[in-house]
């Protein structure tokens, strides 16, 4: 072997050459033992909380205040008609305030958002995704699908459902702490669920008057 070559032996000799080096190396080797003795790294259990309707829930990118739900076929009639298998809308009235610097789409056609997911018997929601299909402002019934930064808005999130009678009088829903991030691979914004979950039991209410759409006489 050539003189001065770097081998495992020379590296070891270099690392263990002096006492301070030996102590540092020994300390590093002891770290797993110390962590193990103190109970180890805990697994991050997602925490769950119960909230009452009408309470602000900070999901990260936005604050959502779930208020109530309704079941109706007297709003957005055309969309309901062209949605296969839909009998009525499940509407959840929420107040949202976006705390990021960019607009958030409440009904984006990407991967499902867990910002608010109604808990219904399997097969009741027409789509498998938990994200709402439509969102309208409670105030005047116009489009409410975009949550703007710093603008607090009350909207009705709408999901098409197959059976209006399958919805109980009190609707359980879960809300999950999320990140609203830009995915460079998909080249679009998307939700990423982080873990903490809030459960809320929503009371039933009537269809907000501004959303009512009279039947058309043809």
């Amino acid at each position: 072997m050539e003189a001065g070559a770097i081998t495992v032996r020379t590296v070891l000799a270099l690392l263990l050459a002096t006492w301070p080096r030996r102590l540092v190396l020994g300390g590093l080797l002891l770290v797993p033992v110390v962590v193990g003795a103190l109970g180890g790294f805990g697994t991050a259990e997602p925490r769950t909380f119960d909230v009452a309707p009408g309470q602000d829930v900070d999901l990260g990118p936005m604050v959502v205040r779930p208020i109530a739900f309704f079941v109706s076929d007297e709003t957005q009639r055309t969309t309901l008609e062209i949605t296969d298998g839909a009998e009525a809308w499940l509407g959840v009235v929420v107040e949202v305030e976006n705390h990021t610097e960019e607009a958030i789409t409440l009904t984006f056609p990407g991967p499902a958002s867990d910002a608010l997911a109604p808990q219904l018997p399997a097969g009741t929601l027409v789509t498998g995704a938990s994200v709402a299909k439509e969102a309208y402002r409670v105030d005047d019934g116009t489009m409410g699908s975009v949550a703007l930064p710093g603008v607090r808005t009350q909207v009705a999130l709408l999901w098409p459902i197959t059976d209006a009678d399958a919805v109980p009088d009190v609707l359980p829903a879960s809300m999950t702490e999320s990140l609203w991030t830009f995915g460079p691979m998909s080249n679009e914004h998307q939700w990423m669920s982080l873990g903490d979950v809030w459960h809320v039991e929503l009371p039933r209410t009537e269809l907000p008057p501004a959303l009512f759409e009279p039947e058309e006489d043809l």
Partner: protein
Amino acid sequence: MRRRWMIVGLAALAVVLGIATNVADARLLPYGPTSSTGAIGEDAGAYPFTVHVSQAQAAHTVLVCCRFETPPPTGTDGVWVVVTLSYATADRPRGASGTGLVLRSADGREFPVSNRTGSGGWLAGPDIWVRGDLAFEVAPDALEGLTLVFDPGIQLYGPMPTQYARIPLDLDPGAVLDVIELSEEQILGAGER
């Protein structure tokens, strides 16, 4: 000993070379977005567009235009900002897409063109100026220091400089109108903005 110094020298050289490449890449090579700052009443370049903002006003409600039946004024939970602007292109007919057209507040929040009024930008042609109104909903505390960002977001020929325009709007938070009637898009005569 000499061999060891050689290895250390080569390692240092690799690090210096990496840093130098990064610096050159970020500062010297001419690509990525560059902004041109305009003003109300001036032409601002955002190649292939040229933009001209003639007016910006704030209001509590807007009256949507060009419907068969005029609906009642549309309210907002924030404040409406209506920007009257015209633009033309330099090459072929193009529409200003909604995504790169935002109002940016002084603290960096971005408000896209509202999807509640029906207008999100229109087609304009080479040196054919078309004027119209764009309605934005913004947070009430963002009114002061708003800037219109007009970013065509077009990668024309691969890695080349792309230009976007920034036009400060100078809105007065005290002067919020009750209602603004949005006007129809209009093709302008030669020299008009």
